[in-house]
């Protein structure tokens, strides 16, 4: 039996600390869905820092460090997912990194399809160490795109025997991150976060479930409380 940590909005550092807590101390497949309140900017694990993001740093949004790689993300009108699962889970057994992305992306693609948005994997391209600052301006073959624009940007962190994949599903564009696709534009209506989160949870329940609605364990909560300050950028 897996676990669903149902959609809720939290402050940026807490969001990142909880993902790490679930990865390092979780014991069952866990889907977590969350939003950002206040909005924030996350930097990839090895991005140099505030100076690397130029004018974004002047936006007045809280800055946090992700434990995953890639470029900066402005987390504003989005639903963020994180899926944590053992690497020897039957659904990932024998998968290389690229295949594991496809397996975890599959329920997201199904949920978006149910909303009326067909995504494709970008399939080619890619930026390495010197790619653009923003995640949504970077291209990798694993991106989920609509008409060439990234709608879902994802990244993985792997620790002994477990993998966490988290990513942003963009609801609407914001001026700090103008190059994305967005569900509001694609569907010509305001798409509530709850609606997307519900659909994603249902599709993950079929793919990785059953998932029982749950909460953090005391160990996970304690770890997240300890780690949250370390995710904040001063």
């Amino acid at each position: 039996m897996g676990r669903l940590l149902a959609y809720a909005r939290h402050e940026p550092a807490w969001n990142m600390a909880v993902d790490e807590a679930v990865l390092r101390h979780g014991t069952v497949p866990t889907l977590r869905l969350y939003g950002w309140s206040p909005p924030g900017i996350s930097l990839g694990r090895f991005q140099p820092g505030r100076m690397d993001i130029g004018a974004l740093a002047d936006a007045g949004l809280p800055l946090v460090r992700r434990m995953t790689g890639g470029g900066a993300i402005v987390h504003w009108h989005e639903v963020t997912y994180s899926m944590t699962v053992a690497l020897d889970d039957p659904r990932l057994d024998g998968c290389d990194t690229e295949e594991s992305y496809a397996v975890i992306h599959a329920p997201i693609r199904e949920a978006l399809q149910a909303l009326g948005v067909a995504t494709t994997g970008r399939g080619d391209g890619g930026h390495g160490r010197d790619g653009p600052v923003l995640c949504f301006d970077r291209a990798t073959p694993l991106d989920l795109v609509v008409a060439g624009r990234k709608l879902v940007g994802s990244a993985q962190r792997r620790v002994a025997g477990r993998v966490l994949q988290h990513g942003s599903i963009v609801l609407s564009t914001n001026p700090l991150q103008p190059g994305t696709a967005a569900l509001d534009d694609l569907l010509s209506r305001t798409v509530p976060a709850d609606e997307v989160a519900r659909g994603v949870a249902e599709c993950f329940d079929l793919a990785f479930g059953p998932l029982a609605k749950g909460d953090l364990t005391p160990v996970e909560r304690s770890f997240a409380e300890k780690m949250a300050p370390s995710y904040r950028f001063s």
Partner: protein
Amino acid sequence: MARPDGYRYLKTHEWARLDGEHCWIGISDHAVGHLSDLVFLDLPECGQDIMQNEPFGEIESVKAVSDLYAPMTGEVVERNDRLIEELDMLKRDPWNDAWMLKVRMEKPSEFENLLEDGSYQRMIDSEDH
């Protein structure tokens, strides 16, 4: 391809090779094969202590950041800064030029805890079945 003699492994694919009171540490060909398009390597500074089975660094490929685990306990006495700048060395030869750390061992007997080549290969085979 056969792996060179004298190396032992953690289940997480790091290797250790003994050299007197020191050991060399790196990651296996199998690990490198699973890390496409390497981007960044973070290693501890000289003088830092590392502990067997605990994370000592991180490696980033285009789509995943992975922890690196120490196969042996001890103090870092050398770090391969050239590798940090030229990560493609790992693809060419993970056993020699692409070593990551040289460590003064605190507990040489820990080497016996590591997987010999045959056991390591069987573990890989079962992972990739």
